[in-house]
């Protein structure tokens, strides 16, 4: 039986010159995990919205063709009439919460559908158990972690008892552990309950092994679908395992680390016979550009307007960063990793000088010389250093600039061109789509030509080609004599970009060393290629190519 059927569907948004989707014909069988992939802005979200009736009833626009989901045609049914057969979770789950606590949110959909109270109680209990939320059932939604919020959002549509579940980028903002929990929940839904789950994702490395069906949305709005091995052989943005498979010529392509390891026995043997590939050479540190000593950051109590549902006591102080020491040299790209709440953001804000710093010293080299490596806290022998928190923001920005987690907060003009003109950068052509907020913010901050660039989670929402462009940009900045500190969950991105990795947990540094060593030391942080080729410490496909190329 087909859970979702699209028949020659085309979607054009109001005011758009070209259709977002063209002539899409697709049949998703029941009980499968279907993965929708495609470059940013290609229409994955539109496909999901069309499947639940939000296009055209909610967003407007023209929908040609027919969409039949769980036996109901979206032409005749409004989204609210499809609520009991289709559940959709958007990109930002927290923005979709209507109530204040977990249980109320889970029950909300059932209340709207008029489900009898006894059934409601049973279903809420079942969903709590299914998604592992029983321990947080009474908590306020604002107190939950990202992974818990994502699961509550899934639960809130699940209680209505749908047969089809649509998720838009469920793991983009989550750290690896939380993403694993969400994916485990989804696979449980597919395998145990027989639901059909359609997931649109950029970060394919974790989810591709569970997919039964892959739909590729091309930039021109057309769509092809089929088996994962077949589809991923051609797609531009593919996870490292698939790239490894393509390069090694494995047919059919391996999708999970286990499959790839079985094929890679020969490759491991070859690599083992060579001299161990030199780890990504830590470039000889020319000069230290940024030195932090004993940085502590405390966060105080809540914001204006005490929320009714918060359970944290007022005045609770969070010790986000505890005594972190960090030195960053010219030409280095340092990645800061750690789970959500480990203090990465707080650390970066403190280093930039714009965020709170309760204790400790941050010194940034103020001239071309840099801080001599051994000198304590700079200012030795006529060096020019400055504390970014102590100088005017304008001045500080010329030496160390931060691109924050939410880049849109940085931009407040109404058009990107105005922003860029305002930042004294060359006006870049292009549409001011929301997806360009990150590069626009990056462009704005780069316009000040800082030597040290700090980035807080820059990869959210970026597809593989965009991540590669970002990697190239950051490496170029480092090669030109600057330094980059980037905090990220994305292990693959870190493997491609960073020379050095610092791991934070509970506000403290627990590991600091060359990327190859730190990333391969722990399974959670190991990139896919490293896991496949374990114990050979190779992080990426490019590194593998270089190693074998150098040997031959």
């Amino acid at each position, binding site marked *: 039986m087909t859970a979702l059927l699209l028949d020659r569907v085309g979607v054009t948004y109001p005011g758009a010159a070209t259709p977002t989707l063209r002539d899409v014909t697709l049949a998703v069988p029941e009980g499968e995990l279907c993965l929708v992939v495609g470059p940013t802005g290609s229409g994955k979200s539109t496909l999901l919205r069309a499947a639940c009736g939000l296009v055209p009833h909610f967003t407007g626009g023209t929908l040609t063709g027919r969409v039949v989901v769980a036996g109901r045609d979206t032409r005749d049914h409004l989204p609210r009439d499809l609520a009991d057969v289709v559940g959709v979770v958007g990109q930002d789950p927290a923005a979709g919460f209507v109530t204040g606590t977990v249980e109320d949110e889970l029950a909300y959909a059932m209340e*709207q559908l008029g489900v009898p*109270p006894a059934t409601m109680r049973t279903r809420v209990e079942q969903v709590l158990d299914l998604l592992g939320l029983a321990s947080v059932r009474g908590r306020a939604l604002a107190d939950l972690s990202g992974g818990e919020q994502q699961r509550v959002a899934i639960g809130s549509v699940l209680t209505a008892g749908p047969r089809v579940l649509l998720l838009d980028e469920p793991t983009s903002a989550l750290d690896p552990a939380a993403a694993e929990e969400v994916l485990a929940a989804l696979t449980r839904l597919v395998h145990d309950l027989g639901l059909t789950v359609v997931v649109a994702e950029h970060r394919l490395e974790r989810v591709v092994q569970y997919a039964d069906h892959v739909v590729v949305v091309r930039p021109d709005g057309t769509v092809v679908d089929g088996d994962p091995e077949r589809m991923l052989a051609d797609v531009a943005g593919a996870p490292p395992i698939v790239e490894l498979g393509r390069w090694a010529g494995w047919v059919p392509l391996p999708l999970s680390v286990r499959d790839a390891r079985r094929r890679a026995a020969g490759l491991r043997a070859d690599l083992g016979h060579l001299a161990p590939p030199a780890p990504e050479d830590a470039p000889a540190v020319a000069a230290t550009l940024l030195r932090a000593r004993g940085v502590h950051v405390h966060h105080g109590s809540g914001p204006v307007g005490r929320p009714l549902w918060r359970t944290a006591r007022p005045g609770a102080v969070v010790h986000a960063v505890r005594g972190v020491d960090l030195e960053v040299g010219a030409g280095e790209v340092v990645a800061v990793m750690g789970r959500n709440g480990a203090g990465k953001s707080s650390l970066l804000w403190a280093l930039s000088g714009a965020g709170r710093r309760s204790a400790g010293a941050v010194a940034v080299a103020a001239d071309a010389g840099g801080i001599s490596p051994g000198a304590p806290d700079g200012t030795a022998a006529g060096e020019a250093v400055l504390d970014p928190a102590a100088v005017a923001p304008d001045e500080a920005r010329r030496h160390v600039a931060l691109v924050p987690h939410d880049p849109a907060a940085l931009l407040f003009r109404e058009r990107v061109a105005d922003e860029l003109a305002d930042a004294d950068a060359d006006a870049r052509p292009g549409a001011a789509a929301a997806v360009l907020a990150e590069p626009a913010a990056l462009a704005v901050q780069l316009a000040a030509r800082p030597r040290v660039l700090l980035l807080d989670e820059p990869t959210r929402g970026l597809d593989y080609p965009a991540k590669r462009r970002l990697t190239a940009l950051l490496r170029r900045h480092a090669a030109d004599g600057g330094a980059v500190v980037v905090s990220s969950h994305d292990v693959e991105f870190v493997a491609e970009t960073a020379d050095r990795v610092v791991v934070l947990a509970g506000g403290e540094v627990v590991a600091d060393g060359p990327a190859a060593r730190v990333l391969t030391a722990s399974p959670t942080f190991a990139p896919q290629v490293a896991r496949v080729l374990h114990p050979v410490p190779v992080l990426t496909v490019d590194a593998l190519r270089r190693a074998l190329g150098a040997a031959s």
Partner: protein
Amino acid sequence: MNGLHPLAWWAWAMALALAAARAPGVWAVTAVLAGVVLVVAVRAGEAPMARLFPAYLLLGVAIVVARVLFHVLVGIKPPGPVLLDLPTVRGPDWAVGVHLLGPVTTTGLATAAAAGFQLATLVVCFGAASALADPRRALRAVPGAVHRLGTAVVIAVSVTPQIATAAATVRRAQRLRGRPERGWRAVRATAMPVFTDALDRSLALAASMDARGFARSTGPRDRLTGPVLAGALVALALGAYGLLAGPAGVGSVVALLAGTAAATAALVLAGRRVHRTRYRPDRWGGPETRVAASGALAAVLALLGPRLGDERAGLVALLVLAAAAAPALGGLTAAPGAGPRLALPEAAR
């Protein structure tokens, strides 16, 4: 979610407000005030709004002080033993020619203070209701006829702290730009991203609500609701006007009650169109009835007080106090496992 149904506390508090407004003497008013403060002290516990109660007490004090000041400054002083012999200053003609200051008598002062005290107690009753009634439960108990607007209030209450945080984030991010704008540009730079972000969130929220079946009313549009609503409003208008202007007190009260009844009827009628169930509906049980009854008893005692004569004023006051403070006993005698009767955070258990 423990605690009593919010309407119970409001019924109790409003009955006590009535008692305070109609109390026969200062002692009765004091009794009401004491009862209210006692109950709040015992029962409020960790309620989110309990912190605000001292502010209401301060407001009450301010009302009394303001009344006294007004009396001293511009009051028409009644004859009596003089407390403060202040000179009478005649105000300028444009200012009504009022007589400022003047000899302050104890009678006048006492009257002014007593009137202020009565009104202050009234305000404190409202404060007690705010402190004791759980707004979370009140929002969940919104009737079906107004559930859309109720949802809007719930959304507003949930989202406000996030907007406040967003404003702080934006302010912080502006500093990253290197030119923290000053003055009016700062306002614009901070306010506009927050505002546009709030509007974008609203559409995402709406999509989520729509996809979950919000506002699935599937009954025919009721022809009766409109006229009933109009009738209710007309009755309320007439009743209020009559109460203020006309001599017929009873008729006006009847009109007001009829208007309220019509409003309730309209609520029920309109609610029938909305097919929606409640997850854990709040029950009105024994404790709620007892609390409401104690308030009603206090009101009745206060209203009947004058009939018992002045010499029994003290007794009346004591009875009023007992009735008003009865809910406090409920808190004291509750089983150890049952109180403080508000949900503790899961993490604290």
